[in-house]
């Protein structure tokens, strides 16, 4: 999707969803352990989250989509980027 143009009238949006601070992130931990084993030193604080990319006619609705479906506010934080 990167670099692509959205369809006429629509806006490209990106939602980044990450585990809330303080909640164990085993996926991040697994990556953090695997990297040095492959010879990549000097990596700290790895976190794995989700990215959802969509094209929306009305970008003001993305926040509501996140609250209702895309993220679970109990365990996840989200961030919306509008890419135009």
């Amino acid at each position, binding site marked *: 999707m990167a670099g692509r143009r959205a369809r006429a009238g629509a806006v490209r949006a990106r939602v980044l969803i990450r585990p809330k601070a303080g*909640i*164990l992130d*085993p*996926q991040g931990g*697994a990556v953090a352990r695997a990297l040095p084993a492959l010879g990549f030193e000097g990596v700290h604080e790895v976190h794995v989250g989700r990215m959802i990319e969509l094209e929306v006619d009305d970008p003001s609705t993305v926040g509501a989509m996140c609250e209702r*479906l*895309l993220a*679970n506010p*109990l*365990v996840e934080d989200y961030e919306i980027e509008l890419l135009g």
Partner: protein
Amino acid sequence: MRIGVVRFPGSCDHRDTIAAASAVGEAVELWHADRDLRGADAVIIPGGFSYGDYLRAGAIARFAPVMEAVGELAAAGGPVLGICNGFQVLCEAGLLPGALLPNISLRFRCVDVRLEVSNPRSPFLAAVPAGAALRIPAKHSIGRYYAPAGMLRELEERGQVILRYAPGESFNGSVERIAAVSNAAGNVMGMMPHPEHAVRERDGSADGRLIFASLRSAVAATGAGAAAGSGSAR
């Protein structure tokens, strides 16, 4: 007693759950797209991968039309049991507190687990003899129960932690070894292990039968309330 077993696209254990529930009542399938509970006194949301577990386990299923009716039954005090994916759906739907996160091993695991009774007064354990431990299979990749510290304290205080994995058996990394929780009223319970796979001698353990047998008393305890649609059964 009529037990409704919900079937979503991607449900897997609904047939086994219907078979197990048939031993204690009349079990009927509830189709996700229908708002109708077909007169069920209790509802079970079975295991599987509703909507492929895509996005988050249970996240999409909670919006199915049938869930509105399940929510009404729960609000009226009727018994609702979520097993595995059903537990995930109930958490996502806000009918149960907390969330289920990927196992710490990040792998699916299918093994028998021993369970300790944490709240013997739960109607979902009415048939479990005092002091008994249960052996029931668990099989999931997203079963690590999580609740923030404050919520956890409340759950413990109110007796909403119903079952725990025995020490050393919490392979998914659940907080406080929690295997099953209920809502505050006690009429909605979610559990990760699968009682429907432990109902016959040939299954290696028949302890799961106790959970289904308990449904009868759970309905008896709350049935009138459910029929009357009276908000809370507390």
